[in-house]
């Protein structure tokens, strides 16, 4: 993983990241199920929220939105399996870049 300070959006809280990603997921993957309740720790794949193509689309969004880059081996359940996992991954990259 390589980032520079200029590429990231520092200072965004995990809560804000979750909110932003949730809005993206609702708009693009849950538009047919507006009543679907997506908890921060819900597993996105297991719950059927995203499929493999959806994961790819979501990662592109996250990279563009937060200025981080995920290598292929980082695209895992641990880093992208839930909204909270995504927020932690993004926040850790931001801290790394800023610090």
């Amino acid at each position, binding site marked *: 993983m390589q980032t520079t300070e200029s590429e990231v959006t520092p200072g965004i809280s995990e809560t804000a990241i979750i909110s932003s990603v949730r809005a993206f997921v609702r708009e*693009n993957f849950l*538009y*047919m*199920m*507006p009543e679907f309740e997506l908890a921060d720790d819900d597993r996105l*794949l*297991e719950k*059927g929220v*995203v*499929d*493999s*193509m*959806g*994961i*790819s*689309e979501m*990662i*592109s969004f996250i990279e563009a939105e937060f200025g981080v880059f*995920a290598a*292929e*081996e*980082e*695209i*895992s*359940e641990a880093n*992208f399996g839930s909204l909270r996992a995504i927020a932690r991954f993004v926040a850790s990259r931001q801290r790394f870049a800023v610090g």
Partner: protein
Amino acid sequence: MCGIAGIARQSPTGVTVDSLGRMAAAIRHRGPDGYGFYVGQRVGLAHVRLSIIDIEGGAQPLTNEDGQIVVSYNGEIYNHLELRRQLEERGHVFRTHCDTEVLVHGYEEWGADVLHRLNGQFAFAIYDRNRETVFVARDRFGVRPLFYAQRNGDFYFGSEIKAILATGEVDAALDPRGLDEVLTFWSARPPRTPFSGIASLEPGTYGIWKDGALWLRHYYELDYPEASEEPEDVVEQLDEIMLRSVGMRMRADVPVGAYVSGGLDSSITASLAATASPHTLRSFSIAFDDPRFDESVFQREVADAVGSIHEVTSIGSQSIAESFPKVLWHTETPLLRTAPVPMYHLARLTKQSGIKVVLTGEGADELFLGYDLFKEVSVRRFCMRRPESLNRQRLFDRLYPYLSQQGRGGEFWRRFFLEAGQPSDPLFSHLPRFLLSSRIKEFYTPEFRRGLGGMDVIAELRASLPTRFFAWSPLNRAAYLEMTTLLSPYLLSSQGDRMAMAHGVEGRFPFLDHRLFEFAAALPTGSRLRGLREKEILRRWASRVLSPRIKGRGKQSYRAPDAPSFFASGSPEWIGDHLTPDALRRVGIFSPPAVGGLLRRCRAGLATGFRENQAIVGVLSTQLWHHQFIESAHTVAPLPISNASVFLSDGAAVPT
């Protein structure tokens, strides 16, 4: 190949010529070469003819010597010459050289047991005036269709549902359960159809109607008595069956052509057809503008190798969108893929080239475990034995290289296969497909979903499996599910019979000879799928008839562009018209806001996955199907009696 239709009355009130004429007109595309009627007080039969065997003498309906047995028949009995000899030895006198007459005398001689002696693809109705019964039957694998409905004790049947609707006596209504099956399995499971109260006769089944009641019975059921070892002469046995199967399917009084996909199976059928044909073989292929789907280089290679005169129909996005309504009119069912559309164009090219019979390779993948789905079963089971092993999971990259390369799904896309069901589930092999397709149901309106009452078509399928299923190996279970849920009701129908017969072209399938099925089903599965090498025994044998380059070629799935076909610039306006909130509300199946979201993503080019591609094709085709069949009147002008090649009656005054 032809089309059949008819009505049987519980009370002998007569079947009008007008009703039969409308039924025949509705399916005239299946038989443009002639038509005929039998009109009686109890039963009326209609027939539209595509003349292939005994061009002069084969018109139908046909009777026995004393006129007591009347048949309307669609199909081919490939062993008609052999059966004819047997029947002649037993004293039957033939008036024609047509296979239809073999059926008439065979029924006289053996009754319903005649079915066990037939090698072919057929659907027919026999009116037995002595017994006052109508005997209907369909071939073992469901190559030829037969639909029926019962209303107030009367029995209506036809090669296509539109013939039944044309009577004006059977209303068209949606069966929500039938649609729910389409959106799970890609097709309703026979006997169910998307039409309420209209059934599909199951493959390998016959029915006897008498006095207002229909009695059904299976005469052929798939079985997999898998041996532990190959017979020593396995290649010789396969050689004998294949050559005989193709040889019998070359029997016709018109030239027989071949479809060439570029894969192993159609290369085999084309090669054997070229050898057996007295003419230079004519071959036909589909080319795609989009190189991801195109196999024209391989097709040309096969055509050159077999020495055929080769013609190609080119398919672009626009041709798929433009033809989609016509294709749906012929499939009579909503679709989840556009793959039938190119087959429609291929049949048109074939007919325009003067060919009305073609051999194709359907069935080989089901018999010899050619589909990726079968390898997927093996890989999923292998991975689940050591779920922590990433090396094992990388086998999915080998299996689906185009999936592993098309996005950045990391480990996620592999996990999909590992989380869709456990090996203990009898539907293990097909759950990934069923569950993926079922995602379309997320677009249902709450009202439509409630109307289904919690029905679970996957659970129903699980509960319907025969006892013997549970004794079979995992791969044979998968093969059975593929044969029964996809091959017959979808591939042989929506992509097969309906697309070819839309243009009066008859497909013949050497791999669906029941002797070949029984041979393959008795082999060890390792003879069919060895590791990740599919159709192993077929490849071993094929070195006798194909060049090494063609023989060794891997499988490319036949696919056609889905969502992009409907959203390219210049797409027809009707697409938007059927997907407006008003149109969706009128039909009441899919939620307007949900479909609105899907349309937004399709128009932005974001709908790239299977899930949304299937959803847009499923929603659009359901809306179109509903418009064409449920909302529209089925008025059709009857074929005039004056031009009928055959007109028979029971001797009573002919009702009009």
